[in-house]
């Protein structure tokens, strides 16, 4: 085998490597909008913790507005804020914390000021039946216990850090997950004994996990703001969707999922 062949192999395999390194979130502009009224596609970038309730609200909204399709991009709020600021064609941004919303509005990408539409609170997610008998925040520091937190860059992690430092609980997690669903899935898979996630997440995963309430979480309640984006391809649709989220019907879905009304 000569050097030429080695180089050919290298080149071919390098191409393969690069092909395997794709990723990211695909998103394309919304469908055609017809000036007045609500039609076409509304693209909503929403925090991972809104997955279940916004999917439901989206279906209700589509049913109430025939001819409208709602498309969601669910991810960590900071990732979404980045994507929007890098020019992703989204109509609506719903964040799990004001900080990530501010990153978008500070960059001049919000149309009008954001409105808080829900609040969420942390609970301790444990495998169903609570095998390790975790009853309080301080139990999480028990030796040998594996705990997952969100990274501080995302809202659930920022809230967790606030709660833990206020309660002076020196917790050393085994992993810092990039969004709340990541932390929750580590509990579902049984890889960790507990995770700090939102109350809504444990409700949505009630088949696999239990949520243990703890009083300190009242000190770090997350406001969820929503805004129509300045470069929204479907502004009319975006406004209608935001109004629907904030309506009584939208609020009912949110509180049913475990959110508190603003």
């Amino acid at each position, binding site marked *: 085998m000569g050097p030429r062949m080695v180089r050919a192999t*290298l080149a071919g395999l390098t191409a393969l490597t690069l092909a395997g390194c794709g990723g990211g979130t695909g998103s394309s502009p919304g469908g055609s909008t017809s000036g007045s009224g609500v039609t076409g596609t509304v693209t909503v970038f929403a925090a991972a913790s809104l997955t279940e309730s916004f999917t439901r609200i989206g279906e209700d909204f589509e049913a109430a507005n025939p001819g409208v399709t709602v498309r969601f991009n669910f991810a960590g709020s900071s990732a979404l804020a980045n994507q929007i600021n890098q020019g992703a064609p989204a109509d609506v941004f719903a964040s799990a914390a004001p900080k990530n919303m501010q990153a978008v509005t500070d960059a001049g990408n919000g149309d009008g000021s954001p409105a808080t539409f829900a609040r969420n609170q942390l609970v301790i997610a444990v495998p169903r039946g609570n095998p390790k008998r975790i009853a309080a925040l301080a139990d999480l520091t028990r030796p040998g216990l594996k705990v997952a937190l969100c990274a501080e860059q995302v809202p659930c992690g920022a809230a967790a850090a606030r709660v833990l430092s206020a309660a002076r609980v020196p917790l050393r997690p*085994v992993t*810092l997950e990039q969004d709340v669903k990541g932390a929750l899935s580590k509990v579902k898979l049984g890889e960790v004994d507990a995770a700090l996630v939102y109350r809504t997440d444990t409700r949505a995963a009630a088949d696999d996990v239990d949520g243990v309430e703890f009083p300190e979480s009242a000190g770090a309640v997350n406001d969820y703001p929503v805004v129509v984006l300045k470069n929204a391809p479907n502004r009319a649709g975006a406004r209608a969707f935001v109004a629907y989220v904030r309506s009584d019907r939208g609020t009912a879905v949110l509180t049913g999922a475990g959110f508190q009304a603003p």
Partner: protein
Amino acid sequence: MTSAEAPTAARGGPPRRRRAQRVPAALLVPALAGLLFLVLPLAGLVVRAPWASLPQRLTEPGALTALRLSVQTATVATLVCLLLGVPLAWLLARARFPGRRLVRALVTVPLVLPPVVGGVALLLVFGRRGLLGGWLDATFGFTLPFTTTGVVVAEAFVAMPFLVIAVEGALRGADTRYEEAAATLGAGRWTTFTHVTLPLVAPGVAAGAVLCWARALGEFGATITFAGNYPGVTQTMPLAVYQTIEGGDLDGAVVLSLVLLTVSVAILAGLRDKWITSA
């Protein structure tokens, strides 16, 4: 992948002299477009880099910790791949057994599998409740997820096919007459392998190891899924880059990416000059 069954590939011979010819435009244009496509994103990183604050950002302890962890785990993962992958490649290239084509297809599965899926699959086997992981935990009280060893496992899983394919290709391209001669002279299969085959395909093994190392160094999906993300323990450079972007610090992410890029290119270029071109 080479699948030529011919035992003797054209080898050596005096280099043919080529007349200086014009490169056909039909090849040149797409070739240059391809080059541009590969190089432009890298240029983007360089242009976007915050050069003024670079020295200060480089000395931040977090960046160096992640870099050290990345280089260490990728190196150990490559050693593991060499230890297991070279014999596997030999088996695929030299041994005759039923279902060989299926085995070869299975070996390449991690290539096409999205790394995140690979991470989930690893959890299902080596996780605390996994097929083997449950036994490991119960018997030795040892679990792989969230450990540096877990990072190595994830990287080796994703990177090993690159080594196996490269080495198998080298073995198929190598002249088997040397091995046959060794066998006629009384050498056993093991002796033939270590004294004849391995030196013969050393450049291929080196190329495979370099690819394997590079793939392991850039590994993200399987690592974050299987090993988690904790600074100093499982947070490799790609994970640190991702977390920095998540935090809205694009400048910081660009700096980390450049560091990873520089180190990997320097190491690859060094190895390449040393081994690969001196066949």
